[in-house]
C-alpha cells in the first residue's frame, strides 16, 4: 500500500497528496505520516514544490478533520441514546471540555492513531468548533512542516526518519495507555483510604 501510494505521489504530486491526507483526516487508515515525510524528501529533490505541497496538504487535512468532527457532532443524539446520563459519559464529557485541546493538538502529529476518535469525540461532546479548528490547524502545521521538514532535511534518507517517528508515536501511545491504568489504580487507592477514614 505504502509503496503504491509513494509511486502515485511521485506521478501526481501535491494534488494527490492533498486527497490522501484528506481521506486520512476522515479516518481511513493510510500511511499519511510516511507520505508527508517522503513528500519533504521529494521537495528536497526538486520533485515537488514544497510551498504549494505544504499549503494543499494543510488545507486538505483540516477539511478532513472538520468533516470527521461534524460526523461526531451530528451523531451526538445516537451516542446520547446509548450513554446519556451515565456517570462515565458525564466524566468523559467534562474531562474532554477541559483537556480536549491537548488531545486535539498532540493527536495531529504525535499519536496519530487516536486522531479520528479525538475528532469524533470533539464533535460528540460539543467541544467548541472554533477551538477545535485552531488546535487542529496548529497541530497539522507541526505535522506538515515538522515531519515534512525532517523529510526535507534528511532527503533521500527519509525512511530512517519515518521508521523512528512511527515507532516513537507507538511508544507515546503505550505510555498514555500505561498512565491511564496507573491513574485509575491511584484513584482506587485514594477512594479506599477515604472510606477507611470515614469508617
Amino acid at each position: 500500500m505504502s509503496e503504491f501510494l509513494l509511486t502515485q505521489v511521485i506521478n501526481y504530486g501535491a494534488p494527490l497528496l492533498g486527497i490522501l491526507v484528506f481521506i486520512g483526516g476522515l479516518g481511513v487508515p493510510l500511511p499519511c505520516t510516511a507520505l508527508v515525510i517522503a513528500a519533504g524528501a521529494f521537495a528536497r529533490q526538486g520533485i515537488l514544490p514544497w510551498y504549494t505541497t505544504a499549503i494543499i496538504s494543510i488545507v486538505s487535512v483540516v477539511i478532513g478533520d472538520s468533516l470527521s468532527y461534524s460526523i461526531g457532532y451530528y451523531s451526538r443524539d445516537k451516542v446520547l441514546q446509548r450513554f446519556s446520563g451515565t456517570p462515565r459519559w458525564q466524566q468523559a464529557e467534562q474531562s474532554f471540555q477541559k483537556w480536549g485541546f491537548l488531545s486535539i493538538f498532540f493527536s495531529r502529529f504525535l499519536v496519530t492513531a487516536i486522531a479520528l476518535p479525538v475528532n469524533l469525540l470533539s464533535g460528540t461532546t460539543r467541544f467548541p468548533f472554533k477551538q477545535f479548528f485552531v488546535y487542529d490547524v496548529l497541530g497539522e502545521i507541526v505535522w506538515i512542516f515538522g515531519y515534512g521538514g525532517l523529510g526535507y532535511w534528511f532527503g533521500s534518507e527519509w525512511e530512517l526518519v519515518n521508521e523512528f517517528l512511527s515507532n516513537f508515536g507507538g511508544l507515546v501511545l503505550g505510555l498514555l495507555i500505561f498512565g491511564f491504568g496507573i491513574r485509575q489504580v491511584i484513584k482506587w487507592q485514594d477512594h479506599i483510604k477515604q472510606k477507611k477514614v470515614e469508617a
Partner: protein
Amino acid sequence: MPLNTSSGQRALIAGIIILGILFTAFFGMRAFRAFRRFDGHRPAPPGNVEIVETDVGLIRDWMTIPFISQTYQVPPEVIFEALNISPRKDHDKSLKVLNEEYYPDQDGFVLNIVKETILAHQSPPIPDSVPTAVPPLTAPAP
C-alpha cells in the same frame, strides 16, 4: 470511570496496564533501534535542491524511472534503453510493476539493471580546481 473496584474492573485495568507496558516495550525498542541507525546518517547540506545522489543502494522498487533519472541525474532514455522498454507508456510505472510486466520470471531484474546502468553512467567526481604546475598569472610589477 466510576470508582467501582469489582473484580471485572480490576481485571480490565490490569489488562490496560499490561497492554501499556507491552506497547511501550515493543515500540520503545523499535524506536531506540531506529534512533541508533541514525548514527552516521547526517542531513544533507542545506540548499534548494539536494545534491545529486550517488548511492544506488537507496533506489527502491516503488520508484519510477523519471524519478530516479532526476535524482541521479541520468537521462531517462539511457535507463529505458538498458531495460529495453518504451519510455512512452511506461514512464509512470514503478520498477516493481515494470519487473512484473516485462521480466516476470526474473525477480529484482529491473532494479538491478537500473542500479548497474546508473553506476555505469555516473562519471567519476571531478575536483573543483585542478592542480597545475604553472603559477597563476599576476600583474607585472610597476
